Each structure stands twice: as C-alpha cells, then as structure tokens.
C-alpha cells in the first residue's frame, strides 16, 4: 500500500457497534495476508491471517474477508470495545516472500 505520511485514515465507531477496516493491496501474486493491531508505544500485534485460497476467516470477534478480484482485504471487529482503539495495518506477502505493510487505519472507539 501507499503511505499517506502523517494523515492516517481514521475511523470512529461507537462502543458496542461493529467496525469494518478496509485495505487495498497491490500485488496480485501475494499469497498470504495478515492484520496487525498497533497500540501507542507498542509494536504491532498479530490479530488474524488468511491465505489467498480462502475468502473468509473468523477469529474471536474478528473476521477477515479477502476479495482477490479487486485486491481488497477487510477486517471486521464485532461489538467494539475501548481496548480496540489502535492503528490497524494489513500486510501482504508477495512473490519475493517479504511482508509489505499497508497504510494503517486509526480506529477510535467512542464511549
């Protein structure tokens, strides 16, 4: 993904509502995708992953959807909680086996 410098996309969601964070990836040869959560002052934390032969994968309160036709990835968080406030990054593993991170999205939970 492309960097937008200091102007991170932001998403504000009411506590208890569902959140959907979107990500466009660039490499049609990417075979593996990961979502990471990064809280202030911490390193990225693994949330969920999905391989390119899947369309959907569910975890605890999170679901990742993959649309290879339009090279789009989304992360759905159910019943968002204050602790979900963070920057969320998608990452893709391309043909060169390297993990490339996209532009993050800052999720803010409104009490």
């Amino acid at each position: 993904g492309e960097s937008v410098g200091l102007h991170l996309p932001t998403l504000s969601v009411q506590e208890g509502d569902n959140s959907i964070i979107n990500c466009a990836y660039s490499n049609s040869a990417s075979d593996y995708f990961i979502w990471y959560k990064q809280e202030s002052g911490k390193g990225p934390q693994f949330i969920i992953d999905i391989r390119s032969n899947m369309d959907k994968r569910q975890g605890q309160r999170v679901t990742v959807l993959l649309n290879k036709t339009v090279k789009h990835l989304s992360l759905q968080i159910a019943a968002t909680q204050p602790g979900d406030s963070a920057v969320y990054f998608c990452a893709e593993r391309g043909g060169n086996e390297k993990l490339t991170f996209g532009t993050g999205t800052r999720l803010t939970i409104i009490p």
Partner: protein
Amino acid sequence: EAGVAQSPRYKIIEKRQSVAFWCNPISGHATLYWYQQILGQGPKLLIQFQNNGVVDDSQLPKDRFSAERLKGVDSTLKIQPAKLEDSAVYLCASSFMLNKNIQYFGAGTRLSVL
C-alpha cells in the same frame, strides 16, 4: 513465553553520531527481522536473518546501516553516521520459520535525530 525484547526504548542523538539497537527474539525463533517505522506509516523491512545468515537486506541503506546476528540469537542494528531522516521507530520481529509463520514484534526503539 517471553516476547521479543528490544533496548533501549528511546534514544536521542545528534546527526552524524552513531547509535546501536539490540534485539533478543523469542526463544527458538530462527528468523529475525528489523523494520523501520516512520511516524504515520507502516513498518518497512530493513533486513531479515535466518539463524545467523542474511536472507534479505535489499532495503538496508548499507552506506550507513549495518546489522549482525553472530550467534543466531541476539541481533544488533547500527546506524553510523545518523541523518535527520533516520528518526523513526526501529522494530525487531521474530518468527519460528522463514516466512512460514506469524511475525511477533517487540515494542521498538524510538530514535530521534536532532
């Protein structure tokens, strides 16, 4: 299980000075990565080790950056001399196997170059 340890947490230096960062990966993890994260951006891979060998350092500015993992466990990343644009968070990550497992990140070292 202990996570990835990094030190120091913060470092402030003047341009043209040198600095070193240290990383201790999760026990048993053969693969170690160094990333640079500039404010407001996603992490960018600098170098990747498998045990004590370099797998990929194509994005490492080799005129000023160096990294080593001599015994296949701990690693150090050095910048000499530092430039203003090196101000960033330097993240270390490790995974059990090369590119086949989830990468686990440390808290990072925040570097400010004045």
